[in-house]
Every structure is written in structure tokens, then in C-alpha cells.
């Protein structure tokens, strides 16, 4: 048998033929692969390029600079200061987190609580995410960290911007504060900035009211990220639009003087320009340090603020509603003159009887013959019982509302209360029983159901002083635009009424026998007119009245009467209206009158309302109207 035969030849031929087929098949496969590449890279290349870009590029929001809050002379009341921070990048801490914290702990103070928080933050984030170790460092501390930087692995100094309130508690109730975003804040606000870690929004006061304007719009940083989200480099930066500056009508110096003067009291004081409603000072004490909320308030501080019976978090000027007491009488006097009772004469014997009830005057022996002028000057209760009896509750209610009581003034600070001016409908609605005439008498001296805010009382004073329907406003310019204000109309009372009440209030301070005569402003040209008030917070029983009403001094603080005073100055050409209310402060020598006197004198001597303002837009056309000059 030969080594090779025909069978070998035939299988070689078969092999060659079939190899050719296989080669053809492989060629077809390569053509398919090339075709697919053509499809992916040439035909659909653009589409995939876009998707690769979407993978690669991430938009990071950049917080805009928050707008400042300034006073009428462009003095900063809330601004942004540099926030010196120290960050730790866990993956760069070559000797471990603990070693890094130990080393930095020798340079700046890190409490065990902070250390716990830092380690928790590290555990919750990826290893390349910087975690804040400490912030709001002083320049000295920050410099020390930078000096030691070569020995601090993983530590990164950083400078950010944070809100600052240079006047601490003196402006706290006007400005409010900023704090971290809560889940509730996100409900109606879709701004993506709210999701930015560490972002702060306005929570109270002007910061809250004008948050949308002050906040600004987010900038964006386009960064290249890898699949884990680590930022590789920044591709582009767009800083966003900074928030608008807000110009208040506040005079920083009057505000600070007022706050200083009120220190220690649980009180509210407002100063207003009667020609246009500009609020020059609005103070509620005790205040709080708004910076605490920005930095992060701790439990102890929070508890101290909320458990204090002097309620430092409450803006008493507009969120506190008090019985006005005798400060309500000028409003009743206006209504009386308007109703033709200007010639009313009453003999005060110390009390008046209505049915079975006896209504007492604050002066046990009585005032004797009293007319409207003396009634106001000496604050005779019996006179105003008589006025009330003759007016009826409907006219009283109407007059109080016209003078700005019992309804929100519309000031641009959140949390304002409307208070209560009772009437038939109100009584029916709230108690389901008809109005009693006895209640009319009590209402006539600002007691009973009547509740007003100090800001409303200031409005009352301003309206009586100017004869116009002014309302308090605290902002003037937002960004570059003047805040719109309602047209100021004349008060719907006759000149006679205005003149009579102004004259009565003048007598309170400047005529012997007036309730505030002892604390008048003696300086010529600066004299004030006013009306004192004491609001009872407890019921005086018959037995007590028989044995002699207890003095406020002998009562616990919470049971003492509120002390109130409304005033305007100067008497000849009123420009400023003022209210001062001290909670449970009706002790001693009318401290509320003394505060109002000092504040009014300070404002006048400084000429606060007439100094040229420094608003960024032309101030023409934004001034008020001239006072009505009763003939």
C-alpha cells in the first residue's frame, strides 16, 4: 500500500474547497463587525458623544451671595463675612482619621461632641468628600492652621461666605435670622439651592419676608466627574446672580439707642415718621443673637431662649397683643368729638353705677368736674365710661378701626397679629351671647376684650399727630426698585377732633396735673405730647377693692400691670410718633414714659427723619405727605 492514495488527494481538495467557504464566512463576519462600527461611530456617533458628555459633566450649584440688609443711611445691618473653615478629606489623611483629628486638635479646639459629628459625617460620605472639621474660626486660628499645614495631612483650609449680624440682639426682631433648610421649607419652594448642603434661608423677620429677593439665583459650576462622582476638574464657572440688597427705613443709631435704653425690660418700643409711616426704630426686648441660628444653635442655648418668661424670641412690637388701657382713650376721644360730645361735662366721684355694677375710676377720690381736655390729661376713667355709654359700642368699634387698631398694619415683617376690637358681631361669633352694655364701658377705657399690638398703638399716635391715615412701613428699596406704598389719605375725622385730642395729649405732658408731666421734654421745640396707660392683667375682686388695691410692687412679676405710653413730637409740627410698652412694668416712675421721652428726644436732636437718606435710587417721589394742620 502506497504511502498516499487518491483518498488523500480527494480530502485535500475537499479541505481547500471548504476552507474557502469558511474564509468567506469569516469575511462576512468581519464585514458585519465593520458595519456595526460604522453604525455606532459614524452614523450614531454624535448621539453617543452627547451621552458620553452627560456621563462626564456634572452641574454643581453654586450658592449666590446673599443680599445685604441696610438702614436708611446705607449702614449694613446684615452682611456676609468670610467664614474661615477647616475641612478634612478622609482619603488624604495618610495616617488615618484619628491621627489627623488629634493633630488638628492641638491647633484648634475640637470638643468630643464635634469629633463624634466629624466621624459620623465621614462615615456617611465617600472618602473623597471634604468634611467640615471646624468653621467660623478667627483669623488667628485660621492663620495658625495654615502655618502648620505642611504637617496636617488631609486637612484643607477653606474660606466661604456666611451671614453675619454685626449688631447681635439689637436688630434681631427686625432682621430675623437665617438657618438650615428644613423639610417643610421645601414643600412650596422648588429652588434647587435648597438642596445644597449648608445652604441657609431666612426664617424670621426681613430675612424671611424678602427671602426670595435676598437669596439671589444659583450659579453653576460645570465639573468633570468620574463614575463614582469624584470631581476631576472644573470645566466652567458661572457665579449666579447675587441677592438684592434691602434698604430699610430704620435709622441704625435710633434703633441702637432704643435697644440700649430698653435693656433689661421685657418691652417693645417703636418710633415712626408720621409723615410717611417710615419706621425708624422697632425694638422688642429681650432680643436674641441671630448669629447663633446661622452657626448652629445648641440645645442649651435653645432651651434658654424658649424657657425665658421674658420671651426673647417673640417680637412684642407686632406679635404681642395687649390690652391698651388708657392709651385707648385718645381714640375714644376722637370718636366723642366726632359724635358731638366735645362739650361733654362729667362729675367724677370715683365710680359710676350701671345697673347692679359699679365701675371704678383709677383715682379713688374722683376727679370732680371733668371735660374732654381734662379727661385725657388726667386719664379720668369715669369720663370715658360716660363717653362710651353715649357713643355705644358700634361707633367705638368703627373709630378704633379707622385709627388703625384691631387690624394688621401691613408692616413687612412676618408674624404680625391683628389684635381685637370687640363689637356685637365679634361677641356673637366668639361667645355666642349678645353684647352687654357694661362691656361697652370697660371697652371705653381700653380694658375687657380689647387687645392691640404696640405697633398699632404707634400707628394710632401717628394718625392723631398727622391727621393722615399713615401706616407703618419698614422697607424702602429692594434691589433697585422703590417699594410701592398705598396712597396716604386724610384721616376720616374732623379737624376739630384732631385738634381737641392733640391738645389733650399735649396737656398730659406739658400742663401741670398731666399724668406724664413729671417726665416731659423741657427742651424748647422738642416737646412731646402723649398718653399714658396701665393695663390690668388680673381681676380686682370686691374684697381687695375694699381693703385697698394691692400695689404692683407687692405682686409677682407675672401679675403686675403692663405699662404703656404713646407719644408724638414735636408738639408744634409733629414728625415722630412713638410707643413704649413694658410687660408687667407698671411700677415706679413710669419707666415706659421715660424711655419714650429719651428716644423721642434722641431722634429729634439727631434729626433722624430729615437727614438725607442714602437709598441707591432717586429718593424723589418716595416721601410722605404734609401733616394736616388743624385750623
Amino acid at each position, binding site marked *: 500500500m502506497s504511502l498516499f492514495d487518491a483518498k488523500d488527494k480527494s*480530502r485535500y481538495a475537499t*479541505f481547500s474547497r471548504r476552507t474557502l467557504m*469558511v474564509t468567506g464566512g469569516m469575511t462576512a*463576519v468581519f464585514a458585519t463587525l465593520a458595519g*456595526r462600527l460604522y453604525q455606532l461611530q*459614524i452614523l450614531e*456617533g454624535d448621539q*453617543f458623544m452627547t*451621552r458620553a458628555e452627560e*456621563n462626564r459633566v456634572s452641574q454643581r450649584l453654586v450658592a449666590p451671595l446673599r443680599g445685604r440688609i441696610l438702614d436708611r443711611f446705607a449702614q449694613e445691618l446684615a452682611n456676609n463675612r468670610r467664614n474661615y473653615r477647616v475641612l478634612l478629606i478622609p482619603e488624604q489623611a495618610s495616617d488615618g482619621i484619628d491621627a489627623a483629628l488629634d493633630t488638628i486638635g492641638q491647633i484648634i479646639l475640637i470638643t468630643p461632641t464635634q469629633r463624634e459629628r466629624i466621624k459620623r459625617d465621614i462615615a456617611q460620605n465617600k472618602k473623597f468628600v471634604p468634611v467640615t472639621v471646624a468653621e467660623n474660626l478667627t483669623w488667628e486660628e485660621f492663620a495658625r492652621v495654615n502655618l502648620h499645614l505642611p504637617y496636617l495631612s488631609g486637612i484643607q483650609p477653606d474660606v466661604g461666605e456666611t451671614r453675619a449680624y454685626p449688631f447681635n440682639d439689637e436688630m434681631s426682631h427686625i432682621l430675623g435670622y437665617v438657618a438650615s433648610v428644613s423639610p417643610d421649607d421645601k414643600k412650596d419652594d422648588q429652588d434647587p439651592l435648597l438642596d445644597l448642603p449648608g445652604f441657609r434661608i431666612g426664617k424670621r423677620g426681613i430675612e424671611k419676608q424678602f427671602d426670595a429677593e435676598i437669596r439671589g439665583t444659583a450659579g453653576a459650576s460645570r465639573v468633570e466627574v468620574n463614575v463614582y462622582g469624584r470631581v476631576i476638574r472644573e470645566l466652567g464657572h458661572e457665579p449666579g446672580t447675587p441677592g438684592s440688597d434691602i434698604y430699610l427705613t430704620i435709622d441704625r443709631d435710633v434703633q441702637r439707642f432704643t435697644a440700649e435704653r430698653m435693656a433689661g425690660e421685657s418691652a417693645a418700643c417703636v418710633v415712626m415718621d408720621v409723615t410717611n409711616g417710615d419706621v425708624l426704630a422697632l425694638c422688642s426686648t429681650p432680643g436674641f443673637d441671630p448669629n447663633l441660628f446661622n452657626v448652629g444653635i445648641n440645645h442649651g442655648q435653645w432651651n434658654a431662649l424658649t424657657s425665658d418668661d421674658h420671651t426673647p424670641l417673640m417680637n412684642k412690637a407686632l406679635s404681642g397683643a395687649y390690652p391698651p388701657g388708657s392709651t385707648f382713650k385718645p381714640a375714644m376721644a376722637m370718636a366723642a368729638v366726632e359724635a358731638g360730645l366735645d362739650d361733654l361735662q362729667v362729675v367724677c366721684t370715683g365710680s359710676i353705677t350701671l345697673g347692679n355694677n359699679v365701675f371704678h375710676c383709677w383715682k379713688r377720690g374722683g376727679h370732680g368736674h371733668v371735660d374732654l381736655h381734662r379727661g385725657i390729661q388726667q386719664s379720668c376713667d369715669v369720663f370715658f365710661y360716660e363717653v362710651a355709654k353715649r357713643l355705644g359700642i358700634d361707633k367705638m368699634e368703627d373709630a378704633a378701626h379707622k385709627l388703625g387698631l384691631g387690624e394688621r398694619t401691613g408692616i413687612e415683617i412676618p408674624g404680625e397679629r391683628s389684635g381685637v376690637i370687640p363689637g356685637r358681631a365679634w361677641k356673637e361669633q366668639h361667645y355666642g351671647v349678645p353684647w352687654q352694655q357694661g362691656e361697652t364701658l370697660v371697652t371705653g377705657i381700653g380694658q375687657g376684650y380689647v387687645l392691640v399690638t404696640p405697633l398699632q398703638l404707634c400707628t394710632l399716635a401717628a394718625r392723631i399727630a398727622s391727621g393722615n391715615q399713615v401706616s407703618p412701613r419698614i422697607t424702602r428699596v429692594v434691589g433697585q426698585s422703590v417699594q410701592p406704598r398705598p396712597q396716604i389719605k386724610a384721616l376720616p375725622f374732623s379737624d376739630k377732633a384732631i385738634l381737641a385730642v392733640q391738645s389733650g395729649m399735649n396737656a398730659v405732658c406739658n400742663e401741670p396735673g398731666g399724668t406724664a408731666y413729671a417726665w416731659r421734654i423741657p427742651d424748647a421745640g422738642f416737646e412731646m405730647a402723649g398718653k399714658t396707660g396701665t393695663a390690668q392683667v388680673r381681676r380686682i375682686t370686691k374684697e381687695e377693692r375694699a381693703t385697698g388695691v394691692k400695689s404692683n410692687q407687692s405682686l409677682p412679676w407675672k401679675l403686675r400691670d403692663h405699662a404703656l405710653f404713646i407719644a408724638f413730637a414735636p408738639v408744634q409740627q409733629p414728625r415722630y410718633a412713638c410707643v413704649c410698652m413694658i410687660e408687667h412694668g407698671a411700677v415706679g416712675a413710669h419707666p415706659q414714659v421715660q424711655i419714650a421721652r429719651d428716644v423721642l428726644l434722641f431722634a429729634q436732636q439727631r434729626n433722624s427723619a430729615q437727614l438725607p437718606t442714602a437709598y441707591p435710587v432717586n429718593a424723589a417721589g418716595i416721601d410722605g405727605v404734609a401733616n394736616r394742620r388743624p385750623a
Partner: protein
Amino acid sequence: MNTRAYAAGRGTLSTREKLLDINWGLVLLIAVVASIGFAMLYSVAGGSFSPWAGKQMVRFAIGLAFLILAAVVDLRVWMSLAYPAYALAFLLLVGVEVAGSAGLGAQRWIELGPIELQPSELMKISLVLALARYLHGLSVEDVSKPLKLAIPLAMIVAPAALVLHQPNLGTASILMADGCVLLFLSGLSWWWIAPTVTAIAAAVPIGWEFFLHDYQKARVMTFLNPSTDALGAGWNISQAEIALGSGGVAGKGFVQGTQSQLNFLPEKETDFIFTTLGEEFGFVGSLALLLLFALIIGYGIRIAMASRSQFGRLLAMGLTLNFFFYILINTAMVMGLIPVVGIPLPLISYGGTAMLTVMFGFGLLMSVHVHRQVEIPRHAAGLFG
């Protein structure tokens, strides 16, 4: 007739003559493709020789030595080693099945000191050797006889089944494909081929139901509809397609591929390295690599056709097909044409065993080339046969 031709025919060339006879053009081509691999490994490391490119170069050097060594060994020696090699590879496959280390849920390798030996890689070459050896002894008529056909079929199915059970769908497919094409090349009758193809088409649903692992099914499902699993396995496919597609015509530039540099690509240094090439060098670059691969395959086919022994022809074609199927499965996978199966791109992907087996395969191919004049009788089987 000069002495050299005579010596070639007799298979008695000196080692020096054999070295000169090596197809150095093919070796150069292989080196060029491997260098593209180094460049890509350098790129996916962010422009660094460590951790991959440097090691891969060392492995290639070792592989090159394997290639030359295998090339000068007489073809008849390889022929006589065919069955023992197959037997060894088969035993090792059984070995990993029985006692192999369990890692990643799959049993694929045996640890021999520092070397991780993958018996399935060994089997790819051994199966081709053994089939070529067996089919060498059959005439065209013999191949189609049921009793003679049963033996090679068993030789193919047994290891393929073991590998599939590991589970390693990619390699099992390659084993099956290699074997079937070799039977076809040996002249298997169309009367066998046509019904079998029909039967397989019918068996696919059954295999789906009873033989595929859940993760393999999931891969197929994900492939058919990537959006069902946009963050899992489907994510890999879409990121690979994004990488390839975003390369466009000319690519983003060396070490500039955002998908690979920013780690959006999975297993970018191994199974998905082709996408990095596509991203950084675009259509031009990826097509060029495909052409280089086609050129190597062309060399393989030419070597097979030129061999004067059936063993040499079948061995050469078997190895070439092996190489081809590697490329086909890997590139088709990253282009989204077939489901994701773990098959590296030969000469390019990072991996020691794969590099060494591929280079050893080229060594055997080269041995066929060097010994192309050697005639081996149908009934004689190598030196020890």
C-alpha cells in the same frame, strides 16, 4: 532537487534553518497588534505602565519565546503529543470541577504555585490538536461514518460540557465552534450538517429552559433589552456602546477617552478594552485593528493551505479559527451584537494565561508553517504513533 527542499520534505531541517524559515512577517504583525494592546493598557491606566502595560509586555516577551520554541519543534512531535495533551487537559477540567477553588461563583482555574492555570484555555489548544490528530487518519468517506464520527463528537462535547458547567459559556461556545468547523473542513457530509443545524435551531428553547444558569439567562435578556437593567448588567453594555460610539470618526485622542479615564467602562483593561480603542482612536483606529486581525487570520489560512499534511492543515485552521472566534465573540459583545460573555480580546486584553496560550497557539501555527513540506501518511501517526 536541492538538499534543503529534500530535508524539508523529510523533516530533517536543522534548528538554525527552521529559525530562518519562521514567517517573521507574521511575527511582526503579532508584535504590532500586541503593541496596540500595550498602548491601550497604558491608556486605561491613565497614562501609566503600571499596573497593566508593563506586566503585559513581560508576558508578551515570554509568549514570544513560547512561540519560537513551539515553532521549531517537529510537527510530528506535536502530533504524537496530541492525545496525551488532550487527556491531561481533560483531567484538569475534571479536576477544577471536583476540587478547584471556588471564586466568583465559578470554578475556572487551578493554582499551581504562583500560576493560575485555566484548564479551559489549555483545552482550546488540546482539542484542536487531538481533533486534527484523529481526523488526520480519516478519509472523506470515513468522516461521515457514524461510528467514526461518534469519537470526535464525544471529544468535542465532553470538555465543552464541563466548561459550560464551570460555567464559562464563552469558552464552551468556542470549543464547540472549533470542533464543528474542523469536522466540516474534514469533509463531513452535508447529509449530516443540514439536519444537525435544523435540530440545533429547534434545541435552543430547550437549552434555554434546562441548561443555562440564571445569570446567563439574565445576560441574554439584558442583551435583548438593555433598558430592563439600566444600572446592572445592561449598564455595562450601554456604557460600552457609549464609549465606542462617542469615539466618532477619529476618536478623542490617546489617553483622552472620558468613558475609560473616568471609569465609566467596566473591566476596561480586560474584556472591554476594545471600547477604549474605539473611544480614543475612533472608527479609523478600531477598523485598523480589525484589519490587522483579519490579516493575521489570512496568514493562518495561507499556512493551512500550504501545508502538505492533513494534520498540519487541520491544526493550522483550528488554531486560526480559535483566534477568530475569540475576536468575534469579544468585539461582537462590546458592540452590543451578542450578550455579554467573559471572553478577552486576544493579544490586547490584560491577562497572563490568555496571552501565553494565544502565543503558544501561534507557535503551533508557526510549526505547521516551518514543517509545511513534511508529509505524514494517513495511517502513520507521528514519531511515537
